């Protein structure tokens, strides 16, 4: 048998395989008479058409496959990719493979693995890079992914002709920040990918993903230019594309975007309107915020009168808003799927307060508003709305007022107010707006003096990771509580303190030992559910510590 340069997969029929295959498909009864050529010359005809065709297809098939293969001239090798930094240790790489196949809470651990690798300037081994392509992780994941495997992923996407990721199409000037060395082919590839994707015209052509990625790059490089360019073609785009492009305004959002976003409130697509309704509250000077301020003024009013001897007396007057088209335009409308069941007007009031600027309450000090809200009939929607506004604006005066007043209310120091779950929740959310050191200091004080339920409520929010000193204090507090009676242990079952502690605690050897000690000291007949939670907490923390140890190995 000769091995000519025939491609088995090609349509070329130099060896007669195509004709033989066609005969096999239509059948010997209908196919033209067999011709003994090439390798078939040695096969004697049997007189049975089916048998002859069977012999023919067998012999010629093997002959055809034996001659398969392509010449070197039709092959273009890939450009080599130069590695741009040291790889993570094998143990850490093996851990990554184990983690990335899991789901659920492990996603946070994978994101942490990536973060640790990025902090140490280590790269994901190239054979594992494709595993990272579909991992979304946290909001910060694109930056971390770029740090540990950015050039490798860009190289792969370029080879496969995929759309570049949004984080790959940034400002070309920023590319000097990558770890690639000057003049090497990696940097050239990177520049090639970015330059190709970020040219101004590029976002008008290509697949939806490519256009979206290109527009993000355009917006990052020139927010005003991107907006002007989008305005010109906005109405001719499909609804999904309009929504995608408008989402890119999160990058470099500025007052100059306000007129365009305002027009988007009247867009025919609900998705576009919702994006505009989400972005406009971030612009303090927008007409949207002015309308919200006016609605606050119409809904809430404090009557002020002098007391008999000294001081002033306040009385909050609430005028619940009515459903109206202009409210719907701004995204203020009741939902029957609201998490907490309230009347339609109470929902409208809460949503107005959520989106209103805190300066709309300038007529009175923040503390007066909070006190009056607590004492009024509509305390719950007003508190929820005010706390949501505080989360958005992080205003120090409002934060102090909310924390102080709600703390007093919780402690029963305000006459006529009894602490309840809503007050504790609003207080916890207000405390969570403190910077981490202050939050930890506040909660550390609570650990010494406050009730167990307040600690559990407060730790439901707050920083994603704790400092070592706070972790130590928290473990001491848990260990102390576990030594107490049922009244001390049962509340620990509620809330997310224990279940989240494994992911939030400082990942040090001391923390791991403290968590393991807590678990090992549990009595045999201990609460099964809480034991399970504590075990999970200890194992999660141990895994996080192990990840760091594995990065330290070589």
């Amino acid at each position: 048998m000769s091995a000519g340069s025939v491609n088995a997969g090609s349509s070329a029929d130099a060896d007669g395989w195509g004709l033989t295959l066609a005969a096999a498909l239509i059948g010997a009864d209908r196919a033209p008479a067999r011709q003994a050529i090439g390798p078939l010359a040695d096969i004697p005809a049997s007189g049975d058409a089916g048998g002859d065709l069977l012999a023919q297809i067998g012999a010629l098939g093997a002959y055809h496959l034996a001659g398969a293969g392509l010449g070197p001239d039709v092959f273009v090798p890939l450009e080599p990719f130069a590695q741009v930094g040291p790889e993570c240790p094998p143990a850490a790489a093996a851990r990554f493979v184990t983690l990335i196949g899991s789901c659920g809470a492990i996603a946070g651990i994978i994101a942490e693995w990536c973060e640790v690798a990025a902090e140490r300037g280590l790269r994901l081994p190239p054979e594992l890079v494709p595993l990272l392509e579909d991992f979304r992780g946290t909001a910060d994941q694109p930056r971390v992914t770029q740090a540990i495997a950015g050039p490798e992923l860009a190289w792969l996407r370029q080879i496969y002709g995929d759309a570049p990721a949004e984080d790959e199409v940034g400002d070309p000037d920023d590319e000097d920040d990558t770890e690639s060395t000057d003049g090497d082919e990696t940097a050239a590839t990177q520049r090639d990918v970015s330059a190709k994707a970020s040219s101004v015209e590029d976002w008008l052509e290509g697949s939806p993903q490519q256009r979206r990625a290109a527009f993000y790059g355009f917006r990052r490089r020139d927010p005003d230019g991107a907006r002007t360019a989008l305005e010109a073609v906005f109405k001719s785009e499909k609804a999904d594309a309009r929504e995608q492009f408008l989402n890119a305004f999160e990058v470099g959002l500025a007052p100059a975007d306000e007129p365009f976003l305002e027009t988007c409130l009247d867009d025919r697509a609900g998705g576009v309107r919702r994006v505009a309704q989400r972005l406009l509250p971030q612009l303090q000077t927008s007409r949207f915020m002015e309308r919200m301020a006016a609605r606050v003024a119409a809904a809430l009013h404090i009557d002020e009168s002098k007391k008999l001897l000294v001081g002033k007396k306040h009385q909050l007057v609430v005028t619940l808003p009515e459903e109206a088209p202009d409210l719907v335009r701004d995204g203020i409308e009741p939902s029957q799927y609201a998490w907490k069941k309230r009347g339609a007007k109470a929902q409208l009031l809460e949503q107005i307060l959520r989106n209103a600027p805190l300066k709309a309450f300038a007529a009175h000090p923040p503390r007066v508003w909070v006190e009056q809200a607590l004492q009024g009939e509509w305390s719950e929607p007003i508190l929820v709305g005010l706390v949501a506004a505080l989360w958005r604006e992080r205003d120090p005066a409002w934060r102090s007022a909310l924390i102080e007043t709600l703390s007093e209310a919780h402690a029963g120091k305000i006459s006529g107010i009894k602490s309840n779950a809503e007050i504790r929740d609003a207080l916890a959310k207000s405390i969570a707006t403190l910077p981490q050191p202050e939050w930890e200091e506040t909660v550390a004080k609570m650990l010494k003096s406050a009730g167990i339920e307040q600690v559990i409520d407060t730790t439901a929010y707050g920083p994603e990771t704790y400092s070592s000193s706070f972790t130590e204090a928290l473990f001491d507090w848990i260990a102390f509580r576990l030594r107490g009676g049922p009244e001390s242990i049962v509340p620990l079952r509620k809330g997310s303190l224990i279940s989240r502690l494994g992911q939030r605690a400082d990942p040090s050897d001391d923390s791991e030992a403290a968590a393991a000690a807590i678990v090992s000291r549990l009595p045999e007949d201990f609460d099964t559910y809480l034991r399970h939670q504590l075990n999970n907490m200890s194992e999660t923390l141990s895994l996080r510590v192990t990840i760091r140890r594995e990065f330290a190995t070589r």
Partner: protein
Amino acid sequence: MGLTAAQILDLAPDASSRKAGQDQAKLPKWSGLARTGDVIWGEIKGSGANPYRTVADLSGPASKCSCPSRKFPCKHALGLMLVDAASPDAIKDGEQPDWVAAWTNGRATRAATAEAKADAPPKPVDEKAQAKRRQAREDKVSAALEELDLWLRDLMRRGLASVRTEPYAFWDRMAGRLVDGQAPGLARRVRALPGLLAAAPRIGAPKPEEALALAIGRLGLILRASRRLEGLNPEQAAGIRAAIGFPVSAEELAARPGRSDQWAVLAHTIEEDDKLTARSVWLAGRQNGGLAQILDYGTPGSPLPPAPAAGQDFTGEIAFYPGDPPLRAILREGKSAASPAGPLPGSNDIASGLANWAEALARAPWLDRWPLRLSQVRIGIAAGDGGQDRRFGIGDATGSLPLFVEPRLRALVSASGGRPIDLFGLYDGYAVIPLALSVERRTYVVPAQDPRPFLRRVA
């Protein structure tokens, strides 16, 4: 012998065991950990009243556990070996407790018994009865082959285009007749035919009708060769009998000459078919350059036997099954150890690889695939292709071949970094299915049972 975590996980019988084994690989869960040489043992708390006692011999590797799991190795044995791989210093030397000593002594006794049995003179054979049985089987197979021949000739007269609409039972009925006729090798090939027709078109694979025609052509070739066994040399005849499904007896296999070498374990491949798991361990001799396929079968009640892991070297003797060209073999005496880093043994350029493929087809034209070892090839794209249909391939100065498209190809491209690689894979005349590669003194294998897009580094 030190096994890496990846090699230990390759021993797991299934994906859930791999995951569960990793969960057990936590040092605090274990008590009484100790070792004597390659034998490690420990106790772990399970759902039972008493802790499970687990012992493993890393040189086997082999293990035993007192848990009720039917999987082998169980998650505890995997966990124990993983603990040792992660922190070998954590397991100190110690004196074997009774239950460990009992297991190791039992293994030694069984090995000695097997050796003595092998050395013992064979029992007298009733040659007359044996010849009668053999003739009865030959007659049954011969009748089955006649029936298959008639069926195939009918198919060719009808035309293969007309069988697209045939139900599965059409093919299964013929396969069943072949099973009854004691020709399981042919039955397996017939049972695979409807799958070829139903397969979705893929880059790097023949079109369904073409694949069916080739498979039927191979069946015809086996039938044709089976009629003239007397005119072939014994190895060729044995190859055809193996393709039909005649078993090779243990005595016959024991009489085969051994071939000693330092065999590099290039890769493992696993094919699962309903209740049967077929594992191929691909070996390449470092001195003689030969290739061998150790094929083992496992069922839920009968797990796969231990085998050296990919990335290890098996230094010892193997014996090839009768056949031409020789490929399938069994392991005999030998020891496994970590492979030295370096190029794939016996690799060559693409033209030589294609010549080997053509030669193998000339000797056994019913072959589906043949292993290729290629040296210093580059991954690239066939010119003229673009967009979603772009076709990845490998090439050097002597030629180029397409690569089979599957999710892990992306990891292969990434690991190569566009640099020259040594590649081991299976070739079917259309595309190469990559199984292992070596690049700049690093060796990677395609995981046998994990479809995710990554490669496992083994050296």
